[in-house]
């Protein structure tokens, strides 16, 4: 589904990613862990097409297509979804209008008929229940005045509405209390099936108690330095990132 080959990327002139290789297949859950500044969020943003991040080398294909040929909205419509680490507040754009536009843009891309107002509201009700988001929130402007936890829940709600084939969750667990973490994880697990894949970008092992990964990768100084099964996360939690540094001989 997703194949990243020898990816290098810069932010504000500084090299962040220095040769990433990663393959994600349908039905898999990958966790990308690593210390602060290792390039986790850069990778997530490069995948989504944020132009603040400049790719200098390498390739990424998504379902066989070159991702660099696609604008961010086309990537989304091809099935790629980024749950933002810091969701933006957009005053004046109502949640309903925003989601309706987004859902219908996806449908148009697939040559499907746009949803009627009634069908859209029905879909929204159904998905709201799934991620247990407060009804009031969807009557407001996008993320405006939402608490940290509400913003993250809203990301998962949007994910439920758009049903992506590849979801990249960038530090979705940060700023969540245990209850919110459980609800968010539950949403992600409900959305998981054999045809889609998830990349969890996270700092802590905590999230992985709720969403169990098939693979854990450690990102350090712009490269994946270690990959293993879910047991790697526990080892990291126990020994800390210094252990990796030592292993690398630093």
């Amino acid at each position, binding site marked *: 589904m997703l194949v990243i080959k020898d990816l290098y990327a810069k932010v504000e002139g500084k090299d962040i990613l220095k040769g990433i290789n990663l393959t994600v297949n349908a039905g898999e859950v990958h966790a990308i862990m690593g210390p602060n500044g290792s390039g986790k969020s850069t990778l997530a943003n490069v995948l*989504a*097409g*944020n*132009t*603040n991040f400049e790719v200098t080398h390498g390739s990424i294909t998504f379902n066989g297509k070159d991702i660099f040929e696609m*604008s*961010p*909205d086309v*990537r*989304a*419509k091809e099935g790629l*979804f*980024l749950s*933002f680490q810091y*969701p*933006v507040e*957009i*005053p*004046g*754009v109502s949640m309903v*209008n*925003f989601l309706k*536009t*987004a859902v219908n*843009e*996806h449908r148009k*891309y697939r040559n499907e008929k746009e949803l009627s107002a009634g069908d859209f509201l029905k879909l929204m009700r159904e998905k709201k229940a799934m991620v247990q988001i407060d009804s009031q929130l969807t009557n407001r*402007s*996008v993320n405006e005045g939402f608490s940290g936890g509400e913003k993250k829940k809203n990301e998962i709600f*949007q994910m439920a509405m*758009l049903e992506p084939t590849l979801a990249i969750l960038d530090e979705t667990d940060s700023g969540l209390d245990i209850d919110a973490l459980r609800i968010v994880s539950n949403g992600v697990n409900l959305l998981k099936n054999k045809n889609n894949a998830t990349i969890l970008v996270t700092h802590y092992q905590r999230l992985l108690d709720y969403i169990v990964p098939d693979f854990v990768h450690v990102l350090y100084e712009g490269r994946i330095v270690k990959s293993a099964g879910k047991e790697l996360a526990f080892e990291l939690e126990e020994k800390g990132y210094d252990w990796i540094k030592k292993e690398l001989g630093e």
Partner: protein
Amino acid sequence: MAEVLEKITAVRRISELYAANLAGITEGLPSWVNQARKPAFVAFQRMGIPGFRTENYKYTDLTRLFDNENFRRSFTPDDFEVDLSEVFNCDVPEFDTHLILVVNGWYDDASNKNTQYPEGVIVKSLRKAMVENTDLVEKYYGKLANVQEDPLIAMNTLFAQDGVFIYIPDNLHIEKPLQLINVLRSEDDLYATQRNLIIAGKNSQVKLMFCDHTLVPQQFINNNLTEFEMGEDSVIDIYSIQNQHNKTASLTGLYIHQERGSQLVTSAITLHGGIIRNNLKVLLDGEHASANICGLALSDKNQHVDNYTNIEHIKPNCHSNQLYKNILDDSSTGGFTGRIHVLPHATKTAAYQRNNNVLLTNAAKMNTKPQLVIDNDDVKCSHGATVGRINDEALFYLQARGINEKEARLMLMFAFAHEVLAEVKIEKLRDVIDKLVNKRLRGEVSKCHSCALDCIR
């Protein structure tokens, strides 16, 4: 030096035009109206055409406009057969108004005669009212618009012959909005002067819409001045929609006096026009009066839109709130000056002001200036101004959800504009303006020679 010489020329040309047509201008009007022209003439000589050197006009230089015009003046009503139903037909469902038509500054008797108003309401030609309702008109005429303060007031008073007079008696609530449609229509380039006087009695309520339109592609200058007296506890909404073609200079003045407990809402929506200067002065002259003042201007090409507000807090416990927004595209320019003056006795004043602007290109330019004069310690005042671009983070967020860049930009611009539109309290009108602004942002209301409200049918 050349500029100085030209300036003298424009003032002289206009003065000579006045002298040559004096008999026609003054004909049929009471002596107190014509007497008011004398100080206006002296003030005009003193102040001249406002330009960069005039502090209050530093963002809108009118010298070039006046140097280059030698337009026909509408000293007499033009003899057009204007069929209201044909030209406007604003038949938005259930959007029902009392229509008042003004053509080239003149009250259009023929189209307006059949309108039925609630008992006691007077709507008529101002020149007629000067003769027939002298007691009402003489008391207020020229009292709020002081010729010494502004050259455009002086010019308007100098050439004033007609416009609209509206009187709402005490305690009357008019349900149906009054829609004043100012039409510019001429076979040659035209300079039109319009003078309005509106008196709202104690505890009266009315909603007014001012719609400015051009019906033909000729060049126009329109000096349109309104004096508005708001009685105690009156509740007045004034919505103006400016949609004239880009060869029009629209110079408007709205001078409002508020008595105790009166509540004002004004919203100026500028969709199109060449040079637009809106002067707004509000005197909060009775305790617990409130004024909620908004403006939204969407400009592109070489348009220029300048809003100048002057809010005077004279009595204690009054509240004013200003919100102006501009979205500027291409090489358009904009100005906002918000003056708040809190007088020494106006304790417990609350006065707020905000001006937010979005520039869509590098060539677009916005000047913004708050001017707060506070002669009192017991006040709450705030002001804020921003000039920025479309928020890239928000843009990326929308794109990351599958919305293409063009649509995402439109959503963000519309969201920015909507805060002003939300202040429009006539729900049907708000819906209509919402759609109009949306269309305008999409560039679909580009050459509207007819009624803007008509475009959305």
